[in-house]
């Protein structure tokens, strides 16, 4: 199922021609190979989320091409791309519908693959949902009829993760999806993320501010600064790195040094 994401010469400037002109993406060329799990670093305003939004089609880019699985999606509408792209944001409330049940939420995410039935929720899909929910180890498989709104933030984020991946997307974009969770829950959600990505072999990009997560998860790490990708490491060089090395590499490569808003934690692996 894994796919290649190719960005060639992507640029985006916001509020062009005004005093507030901001070059958010500056001629980015980047290829994520099939099955790559890329962690994305960068201080606030470096263009990480903007890059994700460009891929998601929230705005059209000024220049460049975006290819997913060989298909040019540069000018495709947001909802037309979304079938192939799963995404998850920092806010756990964003990915789920609170007044609908867990089952209905999953049915919604799964609608392109669901069994043929008149009603959106059916027995066969429910069995499948139970199976995937049980992999979370949160007991949600017994609460299919529970409204999403009563779950905790961590549970909702885990459920959102499942919703983003249940339809087997070509690409998974994770925008600091563990940032608003407590450390223990964040660890758990990250572990589930790795497990799902490995099992489904989804090409994944994950934004994080946590250096140990950046090295611990995935097979490749890129850092962004001022709308550019400033370094891209993988393989043995990455294996040998410690979070400290990563911070050093980042400092050396970035124009804007890390500002105080950037949260950098050095946790033992």
């Amino acid at each position, binding site marked *: 199922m894994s796919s290649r994401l190719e960005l060639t010469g992507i640029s985006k400037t916001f509020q062009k021609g005004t005093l507030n002109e901001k070059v958010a993406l500056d001629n980015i060329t980047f290829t994520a190979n099939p099955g790559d799990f890329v962690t994305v670093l960068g201080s606030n305003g470096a263009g990480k989320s903007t890059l994700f939004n460009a891929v*998601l089609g929230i705005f059209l880019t000024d220049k460049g091409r975006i290819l997913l699985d060989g298909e040019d999606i540069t000018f495709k509408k*947001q*909802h*037309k791309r*979304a*079938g192939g792209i799963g*995404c998850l944001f920092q806010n756990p*409330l*964003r*990915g*789920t*519908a*609170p*007044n*609908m049940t867990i089952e*209905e*939420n999953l*049915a*919604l*995410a799964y*609608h*392109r693959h*669901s069994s043929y039935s*008149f*009603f*959106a*929720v059916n027995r066969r899909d429910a069995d499948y949902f139970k199976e995937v929910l049980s992999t979370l180890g949160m007991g949600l498989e017994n609460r299919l009829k529970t409204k999403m709104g009563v779950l905790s933030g961590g549970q909702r984020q885990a459920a959102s993760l499942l919703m983003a991946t249940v*339809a087997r997307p070509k690409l998974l974009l994770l925008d600091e999806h563990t940032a608003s969770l407590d450390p223990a829950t964040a660890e758990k959600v990250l572990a589930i993320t790795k497990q799902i990505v490995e099992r489904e072999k989804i090409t994944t990009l994950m934004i994080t501010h946590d250096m140990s997560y950046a090295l611990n998860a995935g097979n490749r790490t890129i850092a962004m600064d001022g709308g550019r990708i400033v370094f891209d490491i993988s393989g043995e060089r990455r294996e040998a790195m410690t979070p400290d090395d990563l911070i050093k590499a980042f400092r050396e490569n970035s124009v804007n040094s890390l500002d105080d808003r950037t949260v950098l934690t050095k946790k033992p692996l």
Partner: protein
Amino acid sequence: MTLLSMLVSACMQGMIYAPMALGVYIAFGILNTPDLTIDGSLVFGMTVCAYVTIAGHPVLALFAGMAAGAAAGLVTGLLQTKLKINAILSGILTMTGLYTINYMVLGGQSNRYLQSGTTASNTVFKMFSRTVNDIFGENAVGDINLLPLILSATVTAAAIAILAVFFKTRLGLQIRATGDNEDMVRSSSINADFTRILGIMTANALVALSGALLCQQQKYADLNCGMGMLVVGLASVIIGQVLFGKRGITVGLISAVAGSLFYRIVLQVAYKIDMPSFTVKLLSAIIVVAALSMPVIKNKVTELNGRRARASSGNEGSGGNEQ
């Protein structure tokens, strides 16, 4: 009027306005959108229904009325989604524009009786009572005419059944999700503009159905019938929620109808105690304000009780911002 005939009349009114309550529930409850098109689409349903009824097609007239309402909803939906105009303003714009359209549909007058020349036009209510008379004999209908109530109740029941099923299908689920978390829907493969427009169209089609039924029941169409209808619909939905609580979609639909019935019964009682008819609008507004302010009042009461309890036990200091 006997008590029973009053009750029947109130229920019939309630049932005629029930589709409107369903529409308001869909717009405000499910789609979470303040849609002010409603005052206009009710009249649009009414005038189009009048036009088609006078032309001699009473059943088709109901569907034509619904289609008119759906068209009004389509305009509001397009304003909201494609032109990104604020939801409340979109509704007001459509409603305002509709006044002219309605005036034109009525042939350049502000009200019109359902008759062509001097013969009264046929309506679904007449057709129904004729059918019943044919089957059960001329005197089947007693002193109190239950037939209009039965007919409008049947239409409402059918509407509830269709909607309850629809909101469990994939498309229905998508519309509900759009109201529940539009951000989520926008980042999924669902076209949120489409589901939003479809939801608003459904809501306004139902509102227009009420207008069409009302038109045939009272045998005339009037441009000023729509004023304040949104508040009436909201009152019904809120009363229904007080009666049944906030639960699933099907219960929500049923409770909106129950709210509509209850509202009309309250009005009938108000008439009975000789409140003049012009007080109706104020009464409706007060009912809605009372129902909406319920949570705040409840909070204040518990807070006050808690404060009093603490004051009597001599515990001061923490919390409370007395002035």
